[in-house]
């Protein structure tokens, strides 16, 4: 799987929510795109990840 441009080994079958929790992301503060499509927060628990997936995880930072 590719996460934010880097190849990541998935290991076992996981939901998106499992993955984000395992990486210690605070779900309040992020947004996620899976294979180019925005994933609503409400769908994190029902989306399963696979090795072919491309994930983008974003957050706010300071900026003008």
């Amino acid at each position: 799987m590719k996460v934010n441009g880097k190849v990541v080994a998935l290991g076992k079958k996981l939901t998106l929510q499992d993955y984000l929790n395992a990486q210690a992301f605070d779900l309040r503060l992020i947004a996620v795109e899976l294979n180019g499509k925005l994933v609503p927060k409400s769908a994190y628990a029902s989306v399963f990840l696979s090795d072919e997936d491309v994930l983008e995880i974003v957050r706010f930072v300071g900026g003008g």
Partner: protein
Amino acid sequence: MHDLLTIGKHDFRSRFILGSGKFSLGMIKAVIEHGGVEMVTLALRRANIGGEANILDYLPQNIVVLPNTSGARNAGEAVRIARLAREIGCGDFVKVEVIRDSKYLLPDNYETIKATEMLAKEGFIVMPYMYPDLNVARALAEAGAAAVMPLGAPIGSNKGLCTKDFIKILVDEINLPVIVDAGIGRPSQACEAMEMGVAAIMCNTAIATANNVALMSKAFNLAIEAGRAAFLAGPGRVLHSLAEASSPLTGFLED
């Protein structure tokens, strides 16, 4: 009397929009409070590890977040960034910023119009950053923009109101809040823009690069309020030759 700034359906008492770049997270709250700021811009970037400090946790609760689309090089990328930003859950505002020119960081007005139209259709409250061109401002209004944000000078330059005459044309002709974004370097320049009738000032680098960021934020707040009051009051006329005494011309001692 309440003199409110209305953008979309939101009313603001403050006419000072703060850009949050270049500050340490610990200083943001003081800058917001000293500036009387109600709206703050943020950027969206990749989150590579969990558990990092997040700027949202450093903003006072009542702050309205204005995500920008910085990093977008065309309309499609701006729309993608705006959708992601909205999903974080801080409301429908978006500052559209489409830049292909990495030397001068000038906005691509054509792609900005396209992005504005797409995002307004999706229910965003769109505030496009633009080069001050009357035809473009009209097209942005037509596309559904809630305000227009012309640049005063290149981003981060602190050079002031280089585009003053062209911003004045937008103030006179466009029936939307005109917010000067980028280039304002000193409170006096913010005041000058407000006196001329712009609706608000957006400022980041001028404050972030000051020696005392909280005090400079206060200075901008005072200058913006002074300029607004002067605009509402209507400046006195200018005599282009000769003079006119302010004191009475009768009752002199030698009369």
